[in-house]
């Protein structure tokens, strides 16, 4: 039971040992990363399959609320499985620059698994810090001026964000006197005043930097445009989801039905408007996908701000769908960089790439048979369910945003199939690796298309469990288990 | 211009032989009577005589009581009024208009210029004898005959039609070679009108012995083909 902690420890250890192994034998160091990720997958999957009810692990023998405790319920374990899988998919197999990027990726893996699993607010903050450090390194890995400038800007905003998050956590600590999420949940009454709300706002703005929430996502287009497509896929696809999950955890536990929800809703709506509108005018593919991911994350935020199970369900559906589609689209930009007008006739040079582009675009817009439509349908029914005029406004904006999204995505698609003219680039051919990655994601999308009903029920079950506040509190406080380091199954 | 050409055209055309069964004759008389009582006049003012026609049509002399209406296009008209001197350029258009009319058609030459060239007799540019170029039914002399004279002429034409003496339009088909010869003399050998007179003569069985001659041979060499656009699948 206690080896889930390995999921965090192992990658960190591997990250630090990598330079040593590299000096030993370069070939061996290449194998370390994938091996560690496979192990992480194995452990997390083992837990995810056998768990019936959420389990709280008190690390280091100290019972919560004093000690650090991990909260393992289906949602966090699901994320724990997804993280290594995505990293395996986006691992730099053909990497020649040496081990630094691999080490950072392993660091990223460890930090994100920690953030997904941990049940302690400060612990989440620490892992979040580790995560942003790793993402700075990765974002700057293209070693050119634009990348450095973008990463620097990202650094400034992220630093400021962490300061805010810390003040937020401090405020919560002054109010409730504890940092354990479950304990905070128990004392939620004390946070139900202005200070509590301000604390939540600060944490949202703080952690929101990575979750591309409206005011703090100034860095997104520059970083995604200049970073390697694999890195921006990771950042946009995976890391932003973890940040959102952290906020949602706090929301479910402490601020269940306060007007924190409307704060999230407003930020989500603004995110959608800003994201979709600026994507409409974007000139090159990478920036367009960056803005579109801001818009999509705005939608995810709006979905999570729906009170109760329906909100969690809709949010999870939108999140997982975006996690599947966006990395694939980013991978396509590997050979399709440069302005969109240079892409005219690119479909002739890489027909499979264009077909995949259209598949993912249709699913993103929400054309019926594709899972994107079902996610959007859940969200729409959820928004209507919460009969409050602000939610109806959100529904309206969501629908108009879809129209704008359809406009610029189909404009690109038609541009691809238009006859090639003089300013279309000649090197629009896709590499075999990138095509294989995005087609793998495409296959997953199509499988989920056919098996939509079972997936829907499983997701509903996860959402129900995750949004159950009382279950969270008493699993952590009442029957936390002490993991004996000795018993390793 | 040998005089022999002249007498080949009998000047006062003999009446057509009566048809055998009486009913056909009654029908022919009726049609001839209606033809005489309803004449559509193509108001082709080629020269100064045309100024006499409006008074003939309006209230004082009122041609309509005789059944004569002015019409605009040759397709609808029966009478072609040549009112005045016919210059060679105008003669080309007059011949085209004449050939575009549906027969039985009648030509009335008003003013002495059509009879013998009138006061322009020694001009190089005018045609002297109209009936060399097309069969003329009636001349109304006078250097602009008064409306009474015009009406009198038209009445004489009505009488001629009623008792079947106004068949000169058949002359044009039966003696087409003679007329074509005169026309080619004036306009040169590659003179051609869009209407296919020889084809028409064949269709309506009006081919006389003199229809084809050396002038029509010249015409056939020069003529650009003008077969009608047949509907074909």
């Amino acid at each position, binding site marked *: 039971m206690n080896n889930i902690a390995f999921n965090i420890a192992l990658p960190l250890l591997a990250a630090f040992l990598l330079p040593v192994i590299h000096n030993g034998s370069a070939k061996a160091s290449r194998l370390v990363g994938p091996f560690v990720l496979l192990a992480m997958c194995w452990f997390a999957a083992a837990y995810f399959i056998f768990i019936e009810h959420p389990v709280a692990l008190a690390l280091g023998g100290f019972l919560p609320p004093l000690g650090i405790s991990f909260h393992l319920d289906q949602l966090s374990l699901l994320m724990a499985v997804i993280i290594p899988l995505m990293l395996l998919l986006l691992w730099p197999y053909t990497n020649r620059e040496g081990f630094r990027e691999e080490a950072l990726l392993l660091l990223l893996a460890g930090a994100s698994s920690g953030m997904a699993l941990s049940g302690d607010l400060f612990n989440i903050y620490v892992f979040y810090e580790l995560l942003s450090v790793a993402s700075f390194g990765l974002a700057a890995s293209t070693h050119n001026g634009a990348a450095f400038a973008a990463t620097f800007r990202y650094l400034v905003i992220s630093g400021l964000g962490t300061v805010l998050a810390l003040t937020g956590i401090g405020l919560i600590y002054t109010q409730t006197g504890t940092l354990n999420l479950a304990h905070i949940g128990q004392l939620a009454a004390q946070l139900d005043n202005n200070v509590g709300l301000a604390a939540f706002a600060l944490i949202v703005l703080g952690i929101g930097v990575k979750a591309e929430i409206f005011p703090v996502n100034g860095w997104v287009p520059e970083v995604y445009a200049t970073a390697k497509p694999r890195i921006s896929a990771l950042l946009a696809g995976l890391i932003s989801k973890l940040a959102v999950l952290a906020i949602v955890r706090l929301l479910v536990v402490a601020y269940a039905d306060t007007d924190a929800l409307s704060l999230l809703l407003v930020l989500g709506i603004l995110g959608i408007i800003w994201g979709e509108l600026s994507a409409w005018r974007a000139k090159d593919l990478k920036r367009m996908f960056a803005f579109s991911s801001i818009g999509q994350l705005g939608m995810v935020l709006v979905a999570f701000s729906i009170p109760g199970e329906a909100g969690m369900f809709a949010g999870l559906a939108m999140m997982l769908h975006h996690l599947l589609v966006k990395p694939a689209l980013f991978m396509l930009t590997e050979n399709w960089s440069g302005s969109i007008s240079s892409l005219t006739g690119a479909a002739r040079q890489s027909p499979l790439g264009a077909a995949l582009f259209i598949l993912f675009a249709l699913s993103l817009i929400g054309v019926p048979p594709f899972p994107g439509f079902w996610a959007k349908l859940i969200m729409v029914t959820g928004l209507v369910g919460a009969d409050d005029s602000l939610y109806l406004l959100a529904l309206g904006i969501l629908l108009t945003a879809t129209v704008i999204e359809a406009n610029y995505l189909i404009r690109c698609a038609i541009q691809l199939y238009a006859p090639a003219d003089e300013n279309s680039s000649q090197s629009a051919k896709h590499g075999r690796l990138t095509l294989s990655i995005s087609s793998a994601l495409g296959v997953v999308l199509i499988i989920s298309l056919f098996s939509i009903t079972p997936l829907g029920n499983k997701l509903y079950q996860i959402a129900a469990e995750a949004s159950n506040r009382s279950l969270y509190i008493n699993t952590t406080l009442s029957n936390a288990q002490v993991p004996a380091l000795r018993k390793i199954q | 211009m040998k005089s022999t050409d002249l007498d080949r055209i009998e000047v006062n055309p003999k009446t057509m032989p009566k048809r055998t069964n009486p009913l056909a004759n009654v029908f022919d008389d*009726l049609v001839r009577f209606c033809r005489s009582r*309803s004449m559509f006049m193509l108001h082709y003012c080629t020269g100064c005589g045309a100024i006499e026609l409006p008074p003939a049509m309006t209230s004082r002399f009122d041609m309509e009581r005789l*059944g004569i209406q002015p*019409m*605009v296009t040759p397709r609808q008209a029966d009478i072609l009024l040549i009112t005045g001197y016919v210059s060679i350029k105008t003669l080309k258009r007059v011949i085209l208009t004449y050939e575009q009319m549906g027969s039985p058609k009648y030509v009335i030459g008003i003013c002495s210029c059509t009879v013998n060239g009138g006061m322009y007799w020694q001009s190089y540019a005018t045609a002297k004898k109209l009936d060399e170029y097309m069969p003329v039914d009636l001349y109304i002399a006078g250097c602009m005959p008064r409306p009474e004279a015009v009406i009198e002429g038209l009445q004489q034409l009505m009488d001629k039609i009623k008792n079947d003496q106004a068949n000169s339009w058949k002359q044009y088909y039966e003696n087409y070679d003679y007329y074509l010869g005169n026309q080619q003399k004036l306009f040169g050998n590659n003179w051609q009108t869009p209407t296919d007179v020889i084809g028409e003569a064949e269709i309506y069985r009006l081919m006389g012995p003199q229809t084809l001659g050396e002038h029509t041979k010249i015409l056939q060499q020069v003529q650009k083909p003008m077969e009608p656009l047949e*509907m074909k699948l």
Partner: protein
Amino acid sequence: MANSILLTILEVILMPLVAFIVGLFMVLMMRKLAAKLQRRVGPPLFQPLYDIVKLYGKQTQISHGLIHDIGIIMAVGGYVAAEALLPVPGMDGIAAKGGLVTLAYLMMVPSLGLALGVGQCANPNGSIGISRALTAMLAYDIPFIIVIFGVAYHFGSTNLVSIIATQQAEGIAGWGISEMPILAIAGLFALHASLGKQPFEIYIAPAEIATGPMVEMGGKFLGGLFVMQTFQLYTASVLYVSLFLGGGENWVTFLIKCFAVLAIPVLIAYLFPRYRTEDLIRLVWKWPVMLALLGVAFVMN
């Protein structure tokens, strides 16, 4: 059932003949009135008949193709069929089987047929004439349709036979003209415009486009158009009589009414020069449409 079919077939054959004869006299009356207005003697009694027999008696004539022939056949045939829908004293024909709206559309078949025939003459004068004729039709058909709506709504049915029956039931007071005077005036205006006589004669303008559609019509083609003219006058006046003047109780009063109705536009016609197409549209869309709408407003409540 069988003899009623035979009866209707007999009526359908007889009505066009009656229409042709009455139409001839209507044409004669029109030309006589025109002559009298211009202080002329005017044509003899059977002049329209002479013209038609002479035109059909023509020995050579030209045609521009099969569609040119079919155009004239449709023009004459369309009106022959339209006559069968116009009830006359003693004969109802198939008026009960197709109402007022069918008649209005059947009167468009001849103009479409003529338009096709003239189209194949391949003469721009004809095409310009036809484009002006169709524009004039667009112009005068709007008040005509409003009048039809008013009458049909007032009598509650589009069946001409029942319209005439209701009018004759109450005598003069029941006539359309006494119950809907404004509509009657608008109807007269529309009738006049639909005849295509002097002020609205832009599509036959002899000076500018050489009698428009009739430019290439000689011999039996022009004869067909003269026959169509007789039918046109007859249909217009009989329709007006059956809508507003209570239809025909017996032939004498019926003919008097028809000739009186036709005399009015003819008298007006020969005193006016021609309107240009756009002025014609402006005039017909302004006054008759206003009158007709006013009439319908009265009918509606």
